[in-house]
């Protein structure tokens, strides 16, 4: 669940991104929508403020009549309070976002998984290979345009 941010963190965020994190009032319960170029800086700032535990990253494909869009949600957790926080970034038809590997070593595998299944690329990732599927696989299964029962000769 999205729990309220502690006051010092909230103040630091409001000073940096006032349009996303207003000083007063509730944040978006779906996770605040942060510009994609602030993704890395936000993670670094949160890490400074005690959000040390890397939880997960989720990429989602949203096909629209105008073209494909993607959303990348990142979840961090503060181990001393046990509370989680996540934010979202919107990406265009050619989804590229900064990697969090320099901050969190766990981002390595999580971002590889999302690259494999959704096809979001993480700029600066040291080793962006497929994690789940064979290296020679075509397409990204969790895109909405990918049929669930796509055959893969000769095995199925």
């Amino acid at each position: 669940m999205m729990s309220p941010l502690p006051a010092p963190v909230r103040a630091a965020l409001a000073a940096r991104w006032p349009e996303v994190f207003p000083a007063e009032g509730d944040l978006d319960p779906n996770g605040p929508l942060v510009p994609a170029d602030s993704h890395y800086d936000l993670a670094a700032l949160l890490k400074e403020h005690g959000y040390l535990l890397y939880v997960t990253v989720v990429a989602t494909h949203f096909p629209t009549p105008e073209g494909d869009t993607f959303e990348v949600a990142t979840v961090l957790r503060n181990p001393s309070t046990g509370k989680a926080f996540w934010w979202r970034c919107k990406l265009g038809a050619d989804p590229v976002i900064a990697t969090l590997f320099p901050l969190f070593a766990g981002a390595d595998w999580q971002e590889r998984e999302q690259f494999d299944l959704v096809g979001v690329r993480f700029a600066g990732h040291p080793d962006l290979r497929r994690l789940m599927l064979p290296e020679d696989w075509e397409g990204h299964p969790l895109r909405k345009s990918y049929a669930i029962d796509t055959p893969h000769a000769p095995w199925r």
Partner: protein
Amino acid sequence: MTLPHREADVTLPKPARKDPHVDLEKLDAAADLMAINMGPQHPSTHGVMRIKLWLDGEMIVKAVPYCGYLHRGVEKLCERLTVVQLTPIVDKHDYVSPMTNEQALNIAFERMLGLEVPRRARYMRTIIAEIQRIASHLLWLGTFTLDIGGTIGGGASLMMYTFREREAILDVFEMLTGARFHYNTHTVGGQRHDVPVGWPAAVKKMIDAVDAHMPEYEQQCYGNDVLVLRTKGVGVIDRELALELGLSGPNLRASGVDLDLRRDEPFSAYDEIKVNVAVATDGDVYARFDVRMREMHESIRIVRELIDSIPEGPICSQKPVKVPFAVKLPAGRQFYTAIETPRGELGTYVIGGGAEKGAAPYRLKFRPPSLHAMSALPYALVGHTVPDVVAILGSLDPILGEVDR
């Protein structure tokens, strides 16, 4: 007749962080390295995973794990099935503790929809989860000691003992749900099966039997010098690295982080009871082993505390579901929530408003604790020898069904 343990003469190493993506060409000894493969069909990998090891003599210079040999595309399947149909699917993720998987999924949907869960159902969920934790740790203990091979009979005898207790636990679950393994007993809003007559007595009998045998296990493990020597100081994951990697559960607590979602983000009936969290500071294989053993005692205590006080009342706040489209998720709503399973933080990221007019989630992402545990291998294995690989891997306790999904 105790041998001097390693702790007496050596201080635990605190290795500097090594980059797992090290280029072998840059290593001095690259010419003499030998590459060997463990898996994907290897008896001690607990499923189908593969680790490629580059060895300098007997020492591991670089380790690259590969997973995905059990990738069943569950997240794609979840976009096609409705909320009600999903519970039996997630049973198969962490197949050593199916009950907590169901619990995680249904708690995610309940929190998203703001549904009440009756107190009786919350008590039942807590009891079930703790019994499941004992069963899961028992299976881990049996296979871990079998891999290390330090206990009596090359480890096989302890495995036979732990499977004996595990069978008793599965019998209790069978009495409750009618199934031995994949239960499908949680549902959105509560439970599907009420407590049968005589179940609390059966649980108490089973718990007494497990408790009576715990000293036997502890004597075989803690009192076993081979096991202690092979685990102390091996596979150290320090606090900072454990947090960065996103380890959770016993693996994280063994590295000195006092974080347990049962206490810090209570679900089910954990807000009504006190949970004593087992923490160790060394971060090595022995610490992870020790934390799990202490957690089993704590689970036994919690089950004993709750089993007599299951409140009366309904077990589900929703009407019994006849059609699979009964529960609908709101469109445009996104949500992350997590619970503590035997392996750690099992999170669920749900986006509502999918197929079947919102009865299916648009996107469902599981945050498997085992995948994070496995991603620690490139860091933990370097500098150790090949026999230590099975000890480190076993101590991290990854379940490949959950890693690959």
